[in-house]
């Protein structure tokens, strides 16, 4: 099992050929209180770096991009009733969707946990 991060602050945790996607704890902190999440439809084909979901805080809407390409196989319906899970568990039960990877080699271009941590600190 491996977790990778993007420069846009998404994470993807891969088990077999399925990746679970969410936004990083750093991102939820920057967003502030999340009040709505728009999830992709199951079956939708997502392209790496393209819009996949939308997360809305009290103040603003932000796009969530697909960290890797794949087909959406499941979405986290819990977020529809309880969007604040993105704040309380950004990298656990606040996940957005799962996708079946179509090009696992894309993972090689993402950051591991240590690299992402350094990336965030470099931005501060």
């Amino acid at each position, binding site marked *: 099992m491996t977790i990778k991060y993007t420069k846009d602050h998404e994470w993807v945790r891969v088990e077999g050929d399925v990746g679970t996607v969410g936004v990083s704890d750093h991102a939820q902190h920057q967003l*502030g*209180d999340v*009040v*709505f999440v*728009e999830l992709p439809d199951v079956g939708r084909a997502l392209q790496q770096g393209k819009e996949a979901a939308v997360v*809305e805080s*009290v*103040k*603003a809407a932000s796009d969530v991009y697909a960290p890797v390409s794949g087909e959406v196989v499941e979405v986290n319906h819990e977020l529809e009733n309880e*969007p604040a899970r993105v704040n309380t568990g950004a990298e656990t039960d606040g996940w957005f969707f799962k996708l079946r990877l179509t090009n696992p080699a894309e993972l090689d271009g993402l950051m591991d946990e240590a690299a992402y941590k350094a990336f965030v600190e470099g931005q501060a």
Partner: protein
Amino acid sequence: MTEAAENLKTTPLHGLHLELKGRMVPFAGYDMPVQYPLGILKEHQHTRDKAGLFDVSHMGQVRLTGDDPAAALEALVPGDIKGLARGRMRYTLFLNEQGGILDDLMVTNAGDHLFLVVNAACKEQDVAHMRDRLKGKAEVELLDDLALMALQGPAAAGVLARFIPEAATMKFMSYLPATFNGIPVVITRSGYTGEDGYEISCDTSDAETIARALLAEDEVEAIGLGARDSLRLEAGLCLYGHDIDTTTTPVEAALEWALSKRRREEGGFPGHAIIKGQLENGAPRRRVGLRTEGRQPAREHTDICDASGNKIGEVTSGGFGPTFNAPVAMGYVDRAHAALDTPVQLMVRGKPLAAKVAAMPFVPQRYYRG
């Protein structure tokens, strides 16, 4: 501590905002806290439940003096300023010749002068406008040496009375010079949240002392601009530059209550003919509240469409109302669609979101009526 970004101005409470770990953002040329660690939702709700302290020192405080500054100012605004009793205040608008709104402001009859509070982003332009148009009739002084704080919420009166006992019995929209722990202040019972509360004007050098004294009270939390925006939106109050601007008239903006009866008849303010016509025949479009089904907010610039998908207007402010516990928005629609409960569609990211024209405020105003 981080310094303010280059070219941004700071208020006298800037150091305190940093100490309180406010998340600083540029706003109207100032480095201001959008939220503190509490977060917008909790800051919003705290203000509705207890009391919130807001730094609004970026706003323009202006003194108008002269033989009859009230009569002079009436040439620029549609409010009854001459009829304002000493110690009373009123919301009014600077208008252009088309009846468009140059800024919205509070005017207080402070006895020997008029005391104005104008929007931060407009203050230089407002002062220039008054100096130009009121030349020889009134002296205009931008009071850069003053800070301004707002203490808002149901506990505000109880808290402020510990320092200024006479604050408790002030009427809504009244003004009182007072002392706060020996510090001279000027307070008004007014605000921008829909709650009871006060604005406190003081010398810049005293602002931090007063802010710290208020924050030391159990009921008071520091509140950022994010919650200030969600609070005013729930209260149905306009944000200049968004819900009203030079292209909107007071009638389109549903601000007829700011057009004093005498002034409607007498005129003598810019745009009177256009506004009078709109009062008699209706305006082509109206500012309305919008209530959506579900939890998805519709933001500023979202297109508003009729049931057939024809564009009938645009959202000017929209977000999530923490107290309303649902999305809240306001915007302009063509007059044919402005009636309460008219079904409309909001086009959010290309998809229609069902909505209805709704009454404002979304949350009942709780001003002190004595």
